[in-house]
């Protein structure tokens, strides 16, 4: 049976490039970069080289990169820092979007309990936001705009350069959670006026458990983890050197091959979108134009996502869904609700996320099995029967 991994937005397989870059640092160059002796200094050189590589991919200086345990930690530190700095100046208003990752949303909810006010920009129009919405929401007391670069569930790519320009003009700090974008889209933090950016290694064939925060020089940071003086005193703990080197190698590899990967992956994405759109009473989620190269997200009316995923898995396709049953909570994905999908159809969502490791043959396989499984589940769904009998109105 063909096995298709189409859940690359959740995590990716590590590349051989990344694995090869990591292995020397387990038992050959195993020193602590903080040690003065030669073994430690060798490790320090590798750490510096990795930092330079990451900085080059983002268009910033190496000293503006702080290595973290991943995207969530970077998001937490960026937001808490901007909030603490804002509070000192009596600025306690933050602007974000309604479809952020929970690493951002839950951090903001914590700040709300501490007295901050948060504006959640509406994303129902075009499944995206505009820079004008950001501009209109900025107030005298706004200390931070934090929007994701690209949405993890529905693939919308936000107008980051335009938002950056708006924030620069207004003098407001701009942070972007770019976990889904780094390694997949061209990013230049200086040209795009990004003040802070979070990224995660395992979304572009690097290792898990490592990420980075870019912070524009001069912006103050508060520590999330206290301890030693690593990362210029802004992130304590002995550096995870193998992971950092693996991530840097994966990032360089992704940036070196970005154009060819983007066009190849986007071509497969477009075939999937075109093919799955033929399933009656379905709808594409996310911005159809400004979209991650690998993201395909649909809602199918009359069925539930978890059963869809289980059956697809049995047919060799690994995918994900925003249905409540896949999360263990009652509500379907806040992203799907935020773009205006009602509960009834939000439960029937499917996300396929591709990488350059996928093939056209795999796309063929997906295009064969998804319509079969959707039809099979609809055939046993009382909701679908009611829709067909005219006892219930189609939403999609």
């Amino acid at each position, binding site marked *: 049976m063909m096995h298709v991994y189409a859940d690359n937005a959740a995590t990716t397989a590590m590349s051989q490039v990344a694995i090869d870059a990591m292995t020397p640092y387990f038992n050959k160059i195993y020193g602590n970069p903080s040690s003065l002796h030669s073994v430690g200094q060798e490790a320090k050189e590798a750490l510096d080289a990795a930092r330079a590589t990451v900085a080059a991919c983002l268009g910033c200086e190496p000293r503006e990169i702080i290595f973290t345990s991943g995207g969530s930690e970077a998001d937490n530190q960026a937001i808490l820092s901007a909030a603490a700095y804002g509070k000192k100046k009596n600025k306690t208003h933050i602007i974000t979007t309604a479809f952020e990752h929970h690493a951002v949303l839950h951090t903001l909810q914590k700040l709300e309990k501490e007295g901050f006010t948060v504006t959640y920009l509406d994303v129902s129009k075009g499944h995206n936001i505009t820079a004008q919405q950001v501009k209109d929401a900025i107030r005298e007391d706004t200390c931070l705009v934090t929007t994701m670069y690209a949405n993890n569930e529905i693939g919308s790519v936000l107008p980051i350069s335009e938002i950056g320009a708006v924030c620069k003009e207004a003098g407001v700090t701009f942070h972007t959670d770019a976990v889904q974008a780094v390694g997949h889209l061209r990013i230049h933090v200086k040209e795009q006026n990004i003040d802070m950016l979070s990224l995660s290694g395992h979304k572009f064939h690097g290792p898990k458990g490592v990420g980075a925060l870019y912070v524009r020089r001069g912006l103050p940071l508060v520590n999330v983890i206290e301890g030693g003086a690593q990362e210029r005193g802004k992130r304590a703990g002995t550096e995870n050197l193998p992971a950092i080197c693996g991530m840097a190698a994966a990032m360089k590899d992704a940036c070196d091959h970005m154009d060819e990967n983007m066009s190849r992956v986007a071509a497969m994405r477009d075939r999937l979108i075109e093919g799955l759109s033929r399933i009656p009473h379905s709808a594409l989620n996310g911005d159809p134009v400004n979209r991650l190269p690998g993201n395909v997200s649909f809602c199918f009316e009359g069925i*539930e996502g978890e059963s869809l995923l289980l059956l697809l898995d049995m047919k060799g396709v690994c995918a994900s869904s925003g249905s409540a049953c896949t999360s263990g909570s009652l509500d379907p994905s806040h992203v799907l609700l935020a773009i205006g999908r009602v509960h*009834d159809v939000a439960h029937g969502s499917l996300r396929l996320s591709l990488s350059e490791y996928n093939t056209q043959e795999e796309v063929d396989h997906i295009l064969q099995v998804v319509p079969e499984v959707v039809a099979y589940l609809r055939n046993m769904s009382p909701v679908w029967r009611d829709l067909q009998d005219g006892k219930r109105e189609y939403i999609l």
Partner: protein
Amino acid sequence: MALYSEKVMDHFTHPRNVGIIENADGVGEVGNAKCGDIMKIYLKIDHEIISDVKFETFGCGSAIASSSMATEMIKGKSIHEAMQLTNKAVAEALDGLPAHKLHCSVLAEEAIKNALKDYYDRNGLPYNEKDFPDCAHCAHCE
């Protein structure tokens, strides 16, 4: 897949008694699309014996498996025996369900009771309202 027992996967991938019964003697539907699970049970009843049962389910793997198992457990049984079916018995027959999926077995029990109530109503048979809790009492949707 480790999420579910082999029994659950068997009933999910090869569900028994899927479909509808034209001219059923009792039909019950519980759940709602908002909470993500809807179960509909059709009963054919001859001389107080459930001679046939079919189901339709909109929901997750465990909801489909619970419907399948519950219909197997009441098929050929008397309506009085069917009234005794508990969600616990359904879950046990499936070799257990993950904690956050137990409500699926509750829905199966309630769908069957709902269909039996419909049968009693259609035939003007007396019953005790208390024996038919509706899905609203399930904490899952609160």
